[in-house]
């Protein structure tokens, strides 16, 4: 890669300092710089890729536990038996469906309730509003599983144990403090003249919410959809507590059971994990630009 240097800059190196600009570095120094840069990037890329390659290799390598896996990936044969096993001999498709349903319900609820609550908090004067907003932020920093005994009993009381909707309620309650806050901050930055004009025209609050607030809040709601949809796929504590029957398990519980302390089916785990991870990876690489601007947006806004 050291060859990739702007050829025009090399003869230019004597004259540029005179022009008051940054002095151009000698050709040799730039070549060394580029080599060091490439070496550095390659080393980091190696560290990032090494476990990923081993995981992918394990999914296709015959054998069972991590101790059977070759030191150099893909050198001991290829097989798809682990995928066949995971899909036919375990309840993996069922876990996948359960997790998908939970994720969809959580996302729908989060987006609906957070946008309604945020609209109210952003546009109406309410008693105790400031304390409510403050407590939303404080509640957000608390890990929700510290109250898991009480959550268990509350779910027991309303018949939500071993039910997917019980878990959805727990996730919703956990999501709402932060997401409501986030959408509210977003709406605060949108001029009120839009909805005030609609109100003068006689539109009801619900109509303003539906035909003005929802469309303008679209970017933040899309971001919310992504983040709350990804959350349930890998949560472990609450599914373990709430869901008991084998046909109600989620992906994370199922994958964990492959590599528990009792046995090590690392290859099956890798195959199952790969099936979940690939859509995620494609999705993240595709939405990279939007994620960057959303992340930066949430930084700049404060």
């Amino acid at each position, binding site marked *: 890669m050291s060859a990739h240097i702007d050829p025009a800059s090399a003869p230019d190196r004597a004259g540029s300092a005179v022009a008051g600009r940054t002095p151009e570095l000698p050709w040799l120094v730039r070549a060394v710089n580029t080599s060091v840069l490439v070496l550095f990037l390659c080393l980091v890329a190696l560290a990032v890729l090494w476990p990923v390659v081993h995981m992918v290799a394990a999914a296709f390598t015959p054998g069972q536990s991590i101790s059977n896996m070759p030191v150099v990936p893909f050198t001991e044969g290829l097989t798809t038996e682990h995928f066949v096993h995971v899909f036919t001999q375990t309840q993996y498709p069922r876990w996948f469906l359960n997790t998908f349903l939970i994720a969809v319900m959580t996302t729908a609820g989060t987006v609906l309730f957070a946008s309604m609550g945020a609209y109210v908090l952003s546009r109406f004067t309410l008693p105790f509003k400031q304390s409510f907003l*403050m407590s939303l932020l404080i509640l957000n920093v608390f890990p*929700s599983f510290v*109250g898991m005994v009480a959550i268990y009993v509350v779910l027991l009381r309303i018949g939500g144990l071993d039910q997917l909707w019980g878990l959805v309620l727990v996730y919703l309650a956990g999501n709402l403090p932060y997401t409501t806050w986030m959408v509210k901050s977003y709406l*605060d930055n949108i001029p009120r003249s839009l909805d005030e004009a609609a109100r003068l025209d006689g539109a009801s609050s619900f109509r303003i919410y539906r035909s003005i607030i929802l469309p303008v809040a679209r970017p933040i709601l899309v971001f919310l959809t992504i983040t709350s949809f990804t959350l349930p796929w890998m949560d472990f504590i609450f599914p373990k507590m709430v869901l008991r029957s084998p046909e109600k398990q989620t992906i994370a519980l199922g994958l964990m059971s492959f590599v528990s302390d009792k046995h090590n089916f690392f290859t099956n785990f890798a195959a199952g994990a790969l099936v979940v991870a690939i859509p995620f990876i494609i999705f993240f690489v595709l939405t990279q630009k939007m994620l960057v601007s959303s992340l930066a947006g949430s930084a700049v806004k404060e």
Partner: protein
Amino acid sequence: MTAAQAAVSPRETAAPPDERQVLRRSMAFKGLAHLTLLGQRSKGAAFAAVEIVALASLPLIVRKVTELVTLGSPMPEIPVRFRPNSLFMLIDGITVLAALGVFVLLYAVSVASARRIAREMTVLGSRESSVRRSPFADLANRAFPLVGLAPTFLLIMFFVVVPLVFSALVAFTNYSSPSNIPPGATIDWVGFENFQRLFGGSAAGTSALARVFGWTIVWALLATGTCYFGGMVMAVVMQNSSLRITPFFRAVFILPYAIPGVVSLLVWRNLLNGAFGTVNRTLEAMHLISDPIPWLSDPWLAKFVVVAINLWCGFPYFMLLVTGTMTSISQDIVEAAKIDGANSFQIFRRIQAPIILYQTMPLIIMSFAANINNFGAIFFLSGGDPSVSDSVTTGAGGTDIMVSWIYKLTVDLQQYQNASVLAIMIFLIIAPFAIFNFRRTKSFKEGEL
């Protein structure tokens, strides 16, 4: 507003109601003012129904609150399933108090609503203004703040606040295995006994608490610092690199962020296994080591490993964040600095870094708070292990942070009272950060709240 609506209002020209009377009646019984003075039958009936239900369940409320205070008395002579269950008493008591809080809030809303309507009627001299609409129109308009906020409020109340109050209260009880687990036995209030024992009573408990607390802070600082610094370095390098294959590297570096955390942590856990993990076998095959390295079974090495693996998982987030912030910095400043003769390191050091740091500060603080609670990074990688000298009695391993210790105390050891003391400590550490971040926000500074 329409003629039809005006026609159904027989007392249209009647004198507006006396505001003080409205206030008195609305405070005497919920919805009374709406029903008698303001001509709002449906709304008044709804309010009144809530009050009637509340009054009807008054005996229940009193019983539940009494039980919350007493937590039942032990009755070893009757079968287990008929004994008073202190756990349910505790949680039901808190739930009833929360419901009572919602009721008081609704009461305030109904009084406020009555006063507002009365004032409107006084000012406008007629009930036409907004009062005589169908209840459904009212639900979509005036009541929208109530309807829109209710799901969020109720869910947070009963699935976040009640559980958190419960776990705070448990710190003042003796709820723990083996002798105080319902339904076989009762839980009792013990005051500050748990705090005294953990902060200066039993030697093992106190030293474990000091060790875990110290490691939690060190962990959160290191985890946030390494990820932020690593992400910043990568972002700056990528931004300034003119290589053609930079986009390829960027896609690679985003991988740890894209792969679900549990998956990558469990993969690392297996790769780093001391006896048969791929890392050790690779190093042996390369003749770099002769004996396996105890990555996750040596207390100090394990601490280093969890921070390092957390860096692997966490740097892409900050890389994306810093990249986003850097692109939003105005190019004019950078150009101006170049014209003044600054080199690219000076530009970074004096211009870009301060701006990035300032803009990402709230997220660094959030990340620090999140790392204090980063259960997954510890639990899935090391499980809090390896054991240290006091692990047998306290349950806290060498890499356990406060939250993973809470999990072990709750799920494995059923030492709920100690877990709650830890939860209160976490709250005291993190709440100031949350409040600090809140006070920085625009809406707070502009005082519009």
